[in-house]
């Protein structure tokens, strides 16, 4: 049973507080969370070693969102998010080595090294999008497709507290409601959009109420079980009950800076971060829950932690061992293979590629 504060609702009932999860699912969630955190720590290290370039947005602190979500979804359900995408990519089937490989810009990267940190995709995960807010109507279109094709699948559309003000979000809300789309809009409220706190960017920080005519639920996004419960509820709502769109607000926290170039402590205090880590950390939270409820022993925890670390280390070595993409890949995928333009030009007239 999770605490009643786990949910706050807007124009709908709360999900049940009675959580029924199998032991193996709990363990699997724990393993995922630890692996995800380890993976992000690895990315942090690789960035600092100057092996990762450009932007790199970590999801440490927010692991419960992706993990709790995935545990409630099937492979038929769809997910889309912005640039803070490593964790989701992992949950949606991307291997750790393909994710780290992408960060390193290697051939075995999940996008062949062409996308980098912000642009990762799997067959039911649509990225990995760099333009704040743009993924929201795109997500509505993915939901539209499920309805069009008669698929019994929900689409979960993630966006940040900063992104929540983008006009496109409201345009997507409107169409999703008008057309009763199986779309769940999930505001991942990690309290800041870059250096701007939610209350400085948003006239209404109760993001779960901002769908107006779309009901909403605020969820304790630091508790993987609450997330899981809310996502199950949302899936039922929009797929089984065909009640149309729903808004979820996941209250969570970003430990790291916005991206690697942001120390993350000019607009908030170190204590603030420490306090969340100490009182609210999603990984420790689940660990304690497992221990308290005697689902596992300390030793089992340690061994899971160790094996997560080993997995990530191994994946990192694999990724590092991968060569850079072949130079020919520069020219592929501008257009779909077989349907290219006759040729493309490089930097000067004698640099070019002929497709046919």
């Amino acid at each position, binding site marked *: 049973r999770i605490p009643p504060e786990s949910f706050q609702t807007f124009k709908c009932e709360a999900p049940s507080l009675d959580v029924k999860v199998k032991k193996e699912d709990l363990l699997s969630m724990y393993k995922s969370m630890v692996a995800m955190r380890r993976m992000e720590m690895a990315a942090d290290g690789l960035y600092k070693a100057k092996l990762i370039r450009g932007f790199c947005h970590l999801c440490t602190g927010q692991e419960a969102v992706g993990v709790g979500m995935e545990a409630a979804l099937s492979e038929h359900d769809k997910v889309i998010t912005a640039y803070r995408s490593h964790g989701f990519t992992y949950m949606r089937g991307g291997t750790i080595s393909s994710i780290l490989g992408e960060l390193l810009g290697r051939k075995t990267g*999940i*996008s062949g090294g062409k*996308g980098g940190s912000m642009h990762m995709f799997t067959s039911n995960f649509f*990225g*990995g999008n760099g333009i704040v807010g*743009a993924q929201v*109507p795109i997500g*509505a*279109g993915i939901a539209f497709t499920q309805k069009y094709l008669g698929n019994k699948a929900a689409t979960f559309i993630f966006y940040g507290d900063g992104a929540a003000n983008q006009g496109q979000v409201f345009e*997507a809300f409107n169409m999703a409601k008008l057309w009763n789309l199986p779309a769940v809009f999930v505001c991942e409220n990690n309290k800041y959009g870059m250096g701007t706190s939610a209350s400085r960017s948003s006239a209404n920080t109760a993001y779960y109420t901002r769908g107006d005519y779309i009901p909403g639920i605020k969820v304790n996004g630091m508790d993987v079980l609450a997330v899981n419960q809310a996502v199950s509820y949302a899936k039922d709502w929009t797929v089984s009950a065909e009640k149309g769109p729903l808004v979820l607000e996941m209250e969570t926290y970003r430990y790291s800076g916005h991206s690697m170039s942001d120390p993350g402590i000019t607009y908030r205090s170190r204590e603030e971060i420490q306090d969340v880590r100490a009182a609210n950390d999603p990984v420790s939270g689940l660990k304690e829950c497992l221990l308290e409820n005697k689902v596992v022993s300390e030793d089992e925890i340690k061994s899971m932690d160790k094996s997560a670390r080993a997995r990530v280390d191994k994946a990192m070595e694999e990724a590092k061992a991968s060569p850079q993409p072949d130079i020919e890949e520069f020219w592929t995928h501008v257009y779909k293979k077989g349907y290219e333009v006759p040729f493309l030009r490089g930097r000067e007239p004698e640099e070019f590629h002929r497709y046919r």
Partner: protein
Amino acid sequence: VEMTVRDALNAALDEEMAADEKVYLLGEEVGQYNGAYKVSKGLLDKFGPKRVIDTPITESGICGLAVGSAFAGLKPVCEFMTWNFAMQAIDQIVNSAAKTHYMSGGNVDCPITFRGPNGAAAGVAAQHSQCFAAWYGSVPGLKVVSPWNSEDAKGLLKAAIRDPNPVVVLENELMYGVSFPMSEASLSKDFVVEIGKAKIEKEGTDVTIVAHSRSVGFALEAAYLLEKEGICSAEVINLRSIRPLDTETIIKSVKKTNRLVTVEGGWPQYGVGSEICAQIMESEAFDHLDAPVVRVTGADVPTPYAQNLEAFAFPDTEVIARVVKRTLNKQIGASN
């Protein structure tokens, strides 16, 4: 048979929707209203509201939704009431539709068609008169076509819908009501016009005029006029595609005629004509030029409303004829 450009576009939509369940049309007023310019007339009745979708007036949202549906496996035809309004959605067209296939290393496809009237209509002033050919033409990942007559319209729109890449179709409102003969072949539901191939609309020997969209008509008129006046025999090329640009056809023609005039309705700077000039300059055709390439374009001003002013904003037969005559008198190296 004759057919208006409007009916040709309608036939293209009709045929492709009938052929492939995944093709659907969305946009403002495309359904119950039959299209702001009646291009989608009858399609709602025929295919129903699942496949012909009236949207709110939210270009960026509609466009994003359409792109998402393409990522997820459908083949949307996203109508913009005019391309001017698509400026609100251009981020979705460029950053989402054009770039995702590449960024994903080929993991995500985007088979989508964006279409609507482009460039100036009559008396609609500055915010409703812009040509976007060069902007979209600059973007790798997109294909861009610009039909002139009914065959172009039907064949290029069908090709666009079948293409698994995002394709921008730049129509022209002033052409919708114009009738053109349709060949036997073009009436077939198998008819497509290959994207990326220009068409020689009139053969000639003394000068090449390259144009797209409505300007093709003016170019032809000018060519026939000059021929009638005994001044020259002009070859007229209908570009049809803006990206890829069929430089090959232009080069071949220039090698024959040794003179080139480009014509477009858009603003002059960084325009379609500029690119043609540059490509000719960089190609072997350059050495065959007997006179410098000259661009005929829209004037470099926001479009004025008043009729007498508007008349100076866009090229017409007379301007083209004048420039061609001048070009015939120019000789490279001669000082004039």
